[in-house]
Structure formats: structure tokens, C-alpha cells
């Protein structure tokens, strides 16, 4: 697992030189230092069963889209996370060939992205563009595009209804897309993306405009698809959504990948610069605090205002949990709950970009 765009294994906001232009968001070092399944890789590594970005840069004239991106994305749900303008959409458009890299190359399961006739047999993409061909119903849109894929009328009809059913749009399928609400348009875009049963599903901000129930249902659907072995790449600027959805994350800022991997792994690598915070609710927080302060890795222990527990900061969470177990066994401490307080994407992202905010890429 790696944080960074390549080069030295990154450790946190202060590590390494970051990317050019000072926009590496927290100065995570460039490089490929790999230590896990989702490590940045080279084009050669597992190119046939991964989505590989090999030193990819994209510039819109003078404006940076993304720069020096090295990624190797395995099956499962991968979240692209970053603020607006961080390069998420650029990365996705590069992935499906809507954009061509200014430098480097992108291969999706071994396929070049400039061969749509091959690529879109296995790739489905729901863009963030909220526009549709005029005058069509949801069903007509999907069925017509399936016919463009080459399906015969009977199969296109069956696949279109199947896709609409999967996104809960069967009853609205006969209505004009122009009359749909934002949430319904999101669903029909998703239906269009999954209708031909792709292996790779790329979804740009798919949760936008969905009500909470629809979000939960969509997340369940994405998990189901990922469980079936699909590559599902999802972008969002809402960090906790990505936290909920993703098996692994790619964090972007200002056009640079500032971290990637599973979120716990990213967090672990940052322990030296940003000690992990653990919230413990127990019956004798003062006892626990006394024991904790005897440990050299605990840098802070703060009593909660209602004295029902402690907020601890430690540079070695594993040793802290061992110590906690000993206290429970030896002292009879009753623990109500133990939870990491800053191991979510939002906290990690904040740590990464705090030192150097983004520098004007675009999404």
C-alpha cells in the first residue's frame, strides 16, 4: 500500500517532495513504493487484469488536469476522492478514452483506450454530464444505445428492462428523460452504464442527487457488482461516501495522486507524523490514562468532558491495543467501546492536504 504518486514510499504530509508545482497536496512523495495489493504499479505488472495508468499526465493547454499518475487498479470498488477540481473526472475520462493523455499511457484490462470498439464491450461509464439526447424516454435511451452496441432488438429490449429494473426505474422507464428529476437521471445514467454487463464500471459522482434510501441501495448494488469480480471505480468529493463504498481509495489533490490504497493502510503509514486517535469509553478512564502515559508511544490522553472515557493519541496503535487488553485482563477494566477517531478518509485526506492545499487542477 502506498501513499504518493510514485517514488519514495510516502509517509505523510511532510514526507518527500510532492509533485511539481507545489500541488502535491501535503507533499506526499512521488514514486511507486509499493507495499500492498493496490500499490502504484508499472504498466507491466498485471496489466491484463488491472486498470493501469503509466506515468500519465493530462494538460488542457496550460491548465493541469492530472500529472504523473501511476496507478494499478485491481478488481473491487475503488474510490477516487478529492475536492472539486482535483482531477477525478479527468482521470475517469482518460480511463475510458474520452480524453487522450498528454503523456504516458492508460490500459484497461490490457486494452488501449483509443479502441472503443474493444474497450466498451467491457467498460461502462456513467459520466457526470447531466445531459441526454433529446426526446427520448429512459427506456428508449438505453435500448437505442444497446442497439448501437450491436445487440438485436430482442436482446436490447431485455437488457434495457433488466438494467432499468436494477436501478429501480421500470415504472419511470416509459417517461421522457427530460421530465426526470436529478435522482432519476442519475439512475438512468447508471442503468445505461450497466446495461451491457461490463467488467469495468466507471461512475462519476454517482451518488449526487440520490435520496438516502437510493444511496444505500446503490451502494449495495455496487458492492454486489464488486463481489462478482467487477472493477468498480467511483468518484466523489464527499469523503464519507467513499469511506462507505470503497475497498481502496485514490486521493487526488490539484491534479496529483496524494495517496492510494486501503484507507487503514494509508492511515498506518501516517502514524509517525499524525499519531492515531483512539476513542475509548470505559468505567475507569483515569486508570487507563495512567497506564497509557507509561507507554512511550502514547503522546496524548485526554479525558472526555463527561468523564466517560478517553481520547488517546498514539504512534503505535497496535501496541496500544495490546496494552488495553492487558489492562482489561489485569485490572478488570470494563470497556464500553473502542473506536479509531481519525482513521476515516476525511481525516486522512485532511492530513494529506493540510500542509499544501491544492493548486488548481480541474475535475
Amino acid at each position, binding site marked *: 500500500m502506498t501513499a504518493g504518486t510514485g517514488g519514495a514510499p510516502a509517509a505523510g504530509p511532510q514526507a518527500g517532495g510532492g509533485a511539481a508545482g507545489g500541488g502535491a497536496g501535503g507533499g506526499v512523495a512521488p514514486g511507486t513504493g509499493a507495499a500492498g495489493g493496490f500499490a502504484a504499479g508499472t504498466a507491466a505488472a498485471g496489466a491484463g487484469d488491472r486498470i493501469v495508468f503509466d506515468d500519465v499526465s493530462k494538460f488542457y493547454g496550460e491548465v493541469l488536469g492530472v500529472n504523473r499518475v501511476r496507478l494499478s487498479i485491481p478488481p473491487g470498488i475503488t474510490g477516487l476522492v478529492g475536492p472539486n477540481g482535483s482531477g477525478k473526472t479527468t482521470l475517469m475520462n482518460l480511463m475510458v478514452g474520452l480524453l487522450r493523455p498528454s503523456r504516458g499511457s492508460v490500459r484497461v484490462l490490457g486494452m488501449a483506450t483509443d479502441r472503443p470498439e474493444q474497450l466498451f464491450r467491457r467498460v461502462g461509464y456513467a459520466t457526470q454530464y447531466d445531459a441526454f439526447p433529446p426526446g427520448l424516454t429512459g427506456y428508449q435511451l438505453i435500448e*437505442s444505445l444497446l442497439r448501437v452496441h450491436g445487440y438485436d432488438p430482442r436482446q436490447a429490449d431485455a437488457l434495457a428492462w433488466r438494467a432499468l429494473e436494477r436501478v429501480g426505474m421500470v415504472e419511470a422507464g416509459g417517461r421522457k428523460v427530460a421530465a426526470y428529476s436529478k435522482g432519476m437521471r442519475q439512475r438512468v445514467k447508471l442503468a445505461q452504464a450497466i446495461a451491457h454487463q461490463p467488467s469495468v464500471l466507471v461512475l462519476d459522482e454517482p451518488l449526487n442527487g440520490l435520496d438516502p434510501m437510493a444511496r444505500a441501495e446503490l451502494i449495495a448494488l455496487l458492492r454486489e457488482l464488486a463481489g462478482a469480480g467487477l472493477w468498480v471505480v467511483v468518484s466523489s468529493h464527499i469523503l464519507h461516501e467513499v469511506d462507505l463504498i470503497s475497498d481502496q481509495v485514490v486521493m487526488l489533490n490539484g491534479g496529483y495522486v496524494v495517496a492510494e490504497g486501503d484507507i487503514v493502510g494509508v492511515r498506518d503509514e501516517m502514524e509517525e507524523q499524525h499519531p492515531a486517535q483512539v476513542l475509548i469509553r470505559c468505567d475507569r478512564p483515569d486508570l487507563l490514562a495512567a497506564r497509557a502515559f507509561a507507554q512511550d508511544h502514547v503522546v496524548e490522553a485526554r479525558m472526555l468532558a463527561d468523564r466517560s472515557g478517553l481520547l488517546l493519541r498514539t504512534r503505535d496503535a497496535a501496541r496500544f491495543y495490546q496494552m488495553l487488553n492487558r489492562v482489561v485482563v489485569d485490572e478488570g477494566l470494563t470497556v464500553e467501546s473502542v473506536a479509531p477517531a481519525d482513521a476515516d478518509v476525511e481525516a486522512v485526506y485532511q492530513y494529506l492536504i493540510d500542509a499544501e492545499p491544492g493548486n488548481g487542477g480541474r475535475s
Partner: protein
Amino acid sequence: MNGQAQDAAAAGSPLRPAPPLPAGPLPDGAPAAGPLPDAAPARGVAGSDHGGAPWALWRRQLGAVARLELRKSFLGKRALGLYLLAMAPPAVFALRAMLPRAIADPGNLGDATLLMAELYQGFILRVVVFLGCVAIFGNLVRREVLDRSLHFYFLTPLRRELLVLAKYLTGLAVSLTLFGASTLASFFLAYLPYDARLRAGFLLHGPGLAHLGAYLLVTALACAGYGAAFLALGFFFRSPAIPALALFGWEAIHFLLPPVLKQVSVIHYLQALCPVPLSQGPFALLADAPSTWVSICGLLALTVVLVAVSTLRIRRMEISYLDD
């Protein structure tokens, strides 16, 4: 009920597992889509991934694009102006046929022939067909860029060259149908007020059908040539209307151009194919008319080159919609 709740209610049902698709043999070249397990990836398409030209697939894709283009661009309210434009010439002749004393001598078919020639070259060809082709072909790609829906095609396993060809052929079919019918109706309405016996003789035993065939040929070549030009302009200009206006002006002053420059105007070759030559006026610079075969082959070659330019252009096209 808030908007989001309305979404859920309107959509009617939650996301759910998919039912099985009907199984059955696939036609030649069809993508596998039948009884795959839920979420299973679709398999490839015969032909396209294995070398060789998948003609059956390409034919189906051409048909599918044409069907979609017709549905969204030519069968809705958007196309109303186009229909009105195509109906204008027959309406003029119909009005003339209905007006009392509009026909000075019902026994003189020469008047009708001259009027048809003038109206065809001055209005149908230069205005109706020209502007109609701007509207049809200039918008085939450009409008989809402007309304941000072109990517739907780009996200299908369709060769982009094939997309351009399919769009062009659809536009050509629509323009040929509309303006061919307009030319046909105008021709018959032009002769309608005249003596029936003379009219029948002109059509069946005289040059009538040859004239009609020539007008239809010129209309077809105009649609093909102008269509290819405006399709290509759609790739190079944010608004094809501006270069179209420049081309309109160039074609309009064609009669004033020296012989060398006349050869780079489309109307020069189209006029040479018209059955009734007309005076270009006292200020016209005269030039030898090209031969029939030079005109036909030249216009077809121009069409092929311009469509090829469009296919090359779309192959390199990126979708960001940021510049539009």
C-alpha cells in the same frame, strides 16, 4: 414530499437484483447478453475482436445510429423548421396554381419550364437545399457537443469512423427525402395549371422526365456535397453557421468570379447539370461549363474527401465539453 422522496416514489421501486434474461441462440456477431449470471461481464463480439471486418455488426450499428438520429433529430419538434423549409417551394407553385390570372397562357409550357428553372436554381438549390443542409449536417455532431450528449455514442463499442458515416448517411437520407420530395412536388405543381394534354405530352413524350431526373440528380448531389462540407465544418468551428454564411456568400457571387475561382464553388458544377441554362445577368463573367461527368465525379470526389476528413477528425476528438 421533498424532491428526493418524489424521486423514489416516481421511480417506483428500489434497486434490486436483476431477473434472468431470456436465453436463446444469438444471431451472427451479436454480443453475448443472454443468460449471464448477474453482474457477469459481457463477452466480446464476434469479428470485431478477432480480426477481419465484422460487416454484420457494422451494418447493425449503422442501422442503430440511423434509427437513433432519426428519432431524436428528425422526428420531433426540432425538425419542424426543416419541414417548413422543404415545403416552401411547392407552396409557392401551389399558390401560383391557385391564383386567378397567374398563368398568362395555359398553352405555353415554356413559361413553366423557365419558371421552374429560375425557381430551382435561384431558390430551391441556393436557399432551400443549402440552408437545409446547414441545418441537417451542421448539427449532426456540433449540436451534440453543445448539448453535451455526444459522449453517449463515444461510450459504445462503435468505431468513431462508423459513427461519422452513419450520421452522414442518415443526414443524406433525410435531406434526399425532404428536398427530393420538394423538388418533385415543385416540378409537378409548376406544370399543373397548364393544359393537361400538353402537360402529358411534355412529360411522357417530351423532355419532361429528363428535366425532372436532372433536377433530382442535382438535388442529390447538392445534398451530398453540401452535406459533407457542413458535416466537416461542424468539427472545425464552434458555430458552423459562420463558415456556412461565408460559403453562402461565395456561392451567391459565383457568377461574378473569374473562371479559375468558379471552379472552387459547388454551384458551378451543380448549375452545369441543370437541364435549362439560365442567363447569369449582364455583369457575369462567363466560363465554360464543366462536362456532366466532370461535375458528377468532381462532386462525388469532394464528398468522399470531406467525409474522410470528418472521420479523421472524430478519431482524434476528445470529450471534455470544457471549451464549448
